[in-house]
């Protein structure tokens, strides 16, 4: 056992959830640019589910803070918000609730126990690139 087991780690480049998400996006984009022989990224389309816990405005803010001067300078981030869709836990009816806090089934009025079908995703949908 070491005499002083405490270690302090600083992870200073994380100031918010969305910053680290944009970092992950940039990593994936680098791979995809190579794969598709892209020379310049013009646009990237992200799908942001309402239950993913990611704020669209913060995502765009983080993108605008992290991309200038880098390889994706001048590209555009487009965020498509994906609404929640669930299957009722009681009767199986599929529906899109008005908000995530309360989801009464339109058929049987059950409030809880639903299975989320859509709305948890946070994914890169497509990119637009110049290939020459």
């Amino acid at each position, binding site marked *: 056992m070491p005499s002083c*087991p*405490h270690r302090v780690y*600083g*992870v200073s480049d994380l*100031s918010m959830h969305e910053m680290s998400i944009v970092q*992950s*996006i940039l990593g*994936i984009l680098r791979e995809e640019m190579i794969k598709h022989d892209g020379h310049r990224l013009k646009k990237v389309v992200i799908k942001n589910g309402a239950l993913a816990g990611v704020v669209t405005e913060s995502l765009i803010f983080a993108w605008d803070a992290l991309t200038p001067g880098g390889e994706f300078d001048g590209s555009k981030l487009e965020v498509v918000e994906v609404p929640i869709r669930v299957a009722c836990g009681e009767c199986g009816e599929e529906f899109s609730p008005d908000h995530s806090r309360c989801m009464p089934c339109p058929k049987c009025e059950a409030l809880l126990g639903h299975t989320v079908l859509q709305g948890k995703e946070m994914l890169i949908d497509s990119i637009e690139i110049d290939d020459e």
Partner: protein
Amino acid sequence: MSKEVTIIRNVLEANDRLADELRATFKAKKILCLNLMSSPGAGKTSVLERTLTDLRDEFRMAVVEGDLQTDNDARRVAATGAQAVQINTEGGCHLDSGMVLDAIKALDMDEVDILFVENVGNLVCPAEFEVGEDYKVTLLSVAEGDDKPEKYPLMFHISSVMLLNKVDLLPYVDFDLEKAAGHARKLNKDIEVITVSARTGENMNAWYDWLRARRAEKL
């Protein structure tokens, strides 16, 4: 020429890859890894202090502490004799697998049976980022209100255990145990609900039995 390319890749996948790397390490070393999540102050560190003390002779335990700032929590759990390492996220609202991979380098992983990862106090974001855990444990204290499972469904949906802490305060607060447990079970029919008090030690044995059973599965 300009072209559009369909990609469809999960943005959290970079983290998932690192989580798999952690899982492989834990599997090889037969370590049970638990991700402890809750809102700030629900009692994660207090539950750990008692657990590390009570099970000291039974398991070799280590803790990765995640906090915005300070190493207070790592000091508290290290005082029990367990190995501990602190991660300061400096504003980051959750831990991710990259941070945990870095942090465990400070631990002797050959001397660990159970690794607890105490996530940053936050009921939203930690649910999105795996840290190589076998199970997620969400703590809820009775001081916070029985509507939390309803308000943060994802958290309870993906947790294997809801530890309801501070039950010693039940006489003083308006908290309906059945309601909170009921909501959690509706979100996740397999969730185990264990009521405890880290202050008095009440019912901690039920939590220890769960730990024993999960650790046995790793052998």
